[in-house]
């Protein structure tokens, strides 16, 4: 067993001006109770599938909400017409790509993934990650600090 569990970083589209969020703001954004950034731009929320281990950790550690509670809130919005739920992407790579391509986007990544993407972007030697290079040619995501 590895004793070092990777940290979870909150990332946004490069044009999002917020450099930090409070824990309650992050909760409001992911429970779809805050829909706009401070400059009035719409927030687009990306998540991994509910059984993805990183999603489960993000919900519990960063939002302090159980994953099943998030599902309930999102299902209610999606299937009753009341509102819009976060967009689900299959993998962390897709998530980086989606956040880079969507103005106003927010998502989460493991710090390993973030470091890999940065390495590729600044031209450090990388193995066979063509996909990652395609992503990185579009820029680097913002990392947002979460305050208590």
């Amino acid at each position, binding site marked *: 067993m590895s004793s070092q569990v990777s940290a979870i970083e909150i990332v946004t589209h490069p044009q999002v001006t917020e450099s930090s969020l409070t824990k309650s703001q992050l909760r409001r954004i992911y429970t779809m109770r805050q829909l706009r950034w401070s400059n009035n731009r719409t927030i*687009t929320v990306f998540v991994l599938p509910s059984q993805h281990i990183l999603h489960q950790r993000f919900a519990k550690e960063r939002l302090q909400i159980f994953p*099943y509670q998030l599902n309930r809130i999102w299902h209610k919005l999606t299937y009753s017409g*009341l509102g819009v739920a976060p967009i689900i992407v299959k993998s962390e790579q897709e998530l980086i790509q989606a956040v880079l391509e969507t103005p106003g986007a927010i998502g989460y990544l493991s710090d390993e993934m973030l470091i890999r993407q940065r390495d590729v972007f600044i031209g450090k030697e990388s193995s066979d990650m063509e996909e990652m290079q395609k992503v990185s040619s579009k820029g680097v995501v913002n990392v947002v600090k979460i305050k208590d």
Partner: protein
Amino acid sequence: MLSKLKTNAAAEISSIINDLYCSRSLLSRTVLFAFLLVSACGIVAQAEEGDSYSNSQDFQLHGFISQGIIDVDGSDFVNDSGDLSTELTELGINASYQLTSKFRLAAQIVYLDGGNRYAEGVRVDYALIDWSAFTNEQWQANIYLGRFKNNHWLYSSSRDVPFARPSIILPQSVYFDGFRDIAVGSDGVAAKISHSTDDYGNFDFQISYGSSPVSKEQTQNILSEYAQGMAEQDYDAQASFYWQPAFSSWRFGMSILDAEFTYDSAGINGGDFFYDSDFAFQFYTLNALYEGERWEFSGEIYQQRFTIDGFYAPGFELDNIGQGFYLQSRYKVTQKLTLLARYEDFYIDKDDKDGKELEQNTGIPYYFGFHKDITIGLNYDITSNFSVRAEYHWVNGAGRLTPVVAPNPAINDSEDWGMWALQLMYWF
């Protein structure tokens, strides 16, 4: 090529819409049509862009497919024969399109087959314009126009979304399948105001006003199989308030409902045993929900008032106050496996809990005066969007079987009955 595709899609959609008997309301039909047209264009445009993730920022498409088997022993809840039935099908597809930063279109079409529980067929579940009238970091105010879903009770908005509700069959004293099409939503206007604060938590206030079309089949389901006239809902006004304290596992809610119906008899010449009538229905609920890591508790307590003026005879009057509650607990054994236990207890007339007066005054057997249900069940999440569910119900009383106003004791000749059901559910 693209424009041809769009035109074809539009023509096809328009013919589908004309076939939907439920979309009689002109308002929802117009909204739905505009919406489907826009969605069709959205799908085509998106397919051309070739996004690797299927839903974009402005256009989202979701749906669900579920099929089950259900076996009822001792009542006509699902079928008259009492045989094992596959009449447990629920399909739905919905789309949401952000027109501008303030306006959004959304609609869902469902196909339901539940045997005697409700009419089999396709329905427009909701078709609405959502106006985001005000939004900032702590406040949201939305106005919904068109056909909207009832969002006031604990499970009213998810009652026909199989994986989003807690059990295959919900507590019938609140989520009565016989009333499903009338109670699930309305054509009209609704408003929602949400407020979130770090100190006091989340507040949600909703209000709605509208009416639902009542089909001939529903009229007979609710009133009597011999009713030949037309029932109509004059209005349905509802309001609800929910509060979740800051960072709390608890949430509390309350709701009120006031609705009126009229029955227009076909007359003696039309072969109708019944007379013109007014019906009024009022319903008040209080609810609480606790969501822990493994344990979950929820419950609703309610009182209803049902009045009849006419129907059996001109000048006939009835005024019943019914009461009930259910308590439900769920336990998450693992991430994927959840157990359920629930007790439900309901009386149609609080002054006649054992139904003796009902039997004396009308000849309808006493056990039509109440409905009690003990339920156990389990849910297994196979993947993030594929689940299987099974449950058993021990039911005492026939107070929640159709038809409601003039029941059928010949087929429902048993005070105790039971059922089990198994359902597979997939959603996207």
